[in-house]
Structure formats: structure tokens, C-alpha cells
């Protein structure tokens, strides 16, 4: 079964500074990879996704992520964070279970991002 690890539970960054959130996955083949963001009291919103092709993917709100097969990683980055980026960020991995035609997403435990002035 696939698994997703987000090693950082909580990260604090100054407004305007760069950001990198780490995500590692475990799966035998190349999975589908996603980053979601959750604001307090809200559901999750998709930031970006990777399926194949260019390993650097651009998302909404100025975020990008890079897929590195050799490191089984899909880290999220932003060059300059804004106070409104404070939220919880979830990395997710999806696989297609070809025998049933099913698809499932497995989520990491999340990284809480705090922005300080």
C-alpha cells in the first residue's frame, strides 16, 4: 500500500521569506501526487497535482512543487509567502487500482504553516 510522509508537523516562516514543505511517498510505481491546503474550519482545496511529464508543476496562489523520483519526494515551494498562506498543507498520493478500476488518495498527516510578520 502507498504511504505519504510529511516530516514537518509545524513550520514558522516570516512573511516574504521563501517556503519549502517536504513530502515523501512510498509506492512501487509513479503515483499521482497532490498538494492540498486547508484553512481553519474549511475543507481541503487543491493547490497542484503531478501525473507525468514535466517534474516541476505550477499551482494556484504562486505555489510550485517538484517531483523527484530518485528521492521519492514531491516538495512544495513558494518564493515569497504572504500572511494569507497560513494554513495546513497536505500532500497526497493516489494510485489507480487497475483490477477494480478504483482510485484512492492517501494523505500525509499535514504540515501547519504559521506566518510571522
Amino acid at each position: 500500500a502507498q504511504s505519504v510522509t510529511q516530516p514537518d508537523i509545524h513550520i514558522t516562516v516570516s512573511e516574504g521569506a521563501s517556503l519549502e514543505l517536504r513530502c515523501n511517498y512510498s509506492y512501487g510505481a509513479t503515483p499521482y501526487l497532490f498538494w492540498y491546503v486547508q484553512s481553519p474550519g474549511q475543507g481541503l482545496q487543491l493547490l497542484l497535482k503531478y501525473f507525468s511529464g514535466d517534474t516541476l508543476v505550477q499551482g494556484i496562489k504562486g505555489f510550485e512543487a517538484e517531483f523527484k523520483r530518485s528521492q521519492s519526494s514531491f516538495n512544495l515551494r513558494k518564493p515569497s509567502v504572504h500572511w494569507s498562506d497560513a494554513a495546513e498543507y497536505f500532500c497526497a498520493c493516489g494510485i489507480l487500482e487497475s483490477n477494480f478500476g478504483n482510485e484512492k488518495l492517501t494523505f500525509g498527516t499535514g504540515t501547519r504553516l504559521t506566518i510571522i510578520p
Partner: protein
Amino acid sequence: DARVTQTPRHKVTEMGQEVTMRCQPILGHNTVFWYRQTMMQGLELLAYFRNRAPLDDSGMPKDRFSAEMPDATLATLKIQPSEPRDSAVYFCASGPWTGGGLDSPLHFGNGTRLTVT
């Protein structure tokens, strides 16, 4: 802007009582997921449906949980009897997925926060 609607937003109940959570997926979305979010476990997949048929409910405690889709516009998650350990935020998500899988993002509702005392 189409949204996944969950009701109620908050539910406080006593141990042993029945709890029913409802979800209205986005019109046209044929795949519906139920996730549970807790501090300890993060996001756990409980069950999901494709075209109203349950595909996987292996994440759900069978003795007390049940999930159904009476029609394409309503998904329900029921707990009977409820226990304090069921306290969590329950999210419904929907997607327009067909046999090719995960190429469209999941749309999450804002969740039902359940507290069982």
C-alpha cells in the same frame, strides 16, 4: 461556484446516540468519498462510492458505521451507536472521475465537526 455541501456543520451528542451526517456532492460528480480527520490519525479514508455503488468501505468500523447514497445528490454517513472516540471532523469529497482516474481534483466540503460526550 459549485460546492460540496455538508450538514450539519457541528454536532454534539451523547455516547450511544445515533448520528447521521449528510453530503450533497457537486452536480455531475459520480465519485463520493468520506474522510475522517483527527489530530492523531490525520485524514483517513472511510468509504467511497462510484455512481452510487460502494467501492471500498474497508476504512470504516463496520459494527457501528454505515455509508449510503440513496440518490446521486445525497450521501449519508451514519454512526450507531456513537462513542467518544468517534469525535472528529468528517469530510465528504466528490469528483467527476471516470475510468481514467485521478485527473480531476477532489472537491471537499467544509466538514461536520462531531463531538461525542
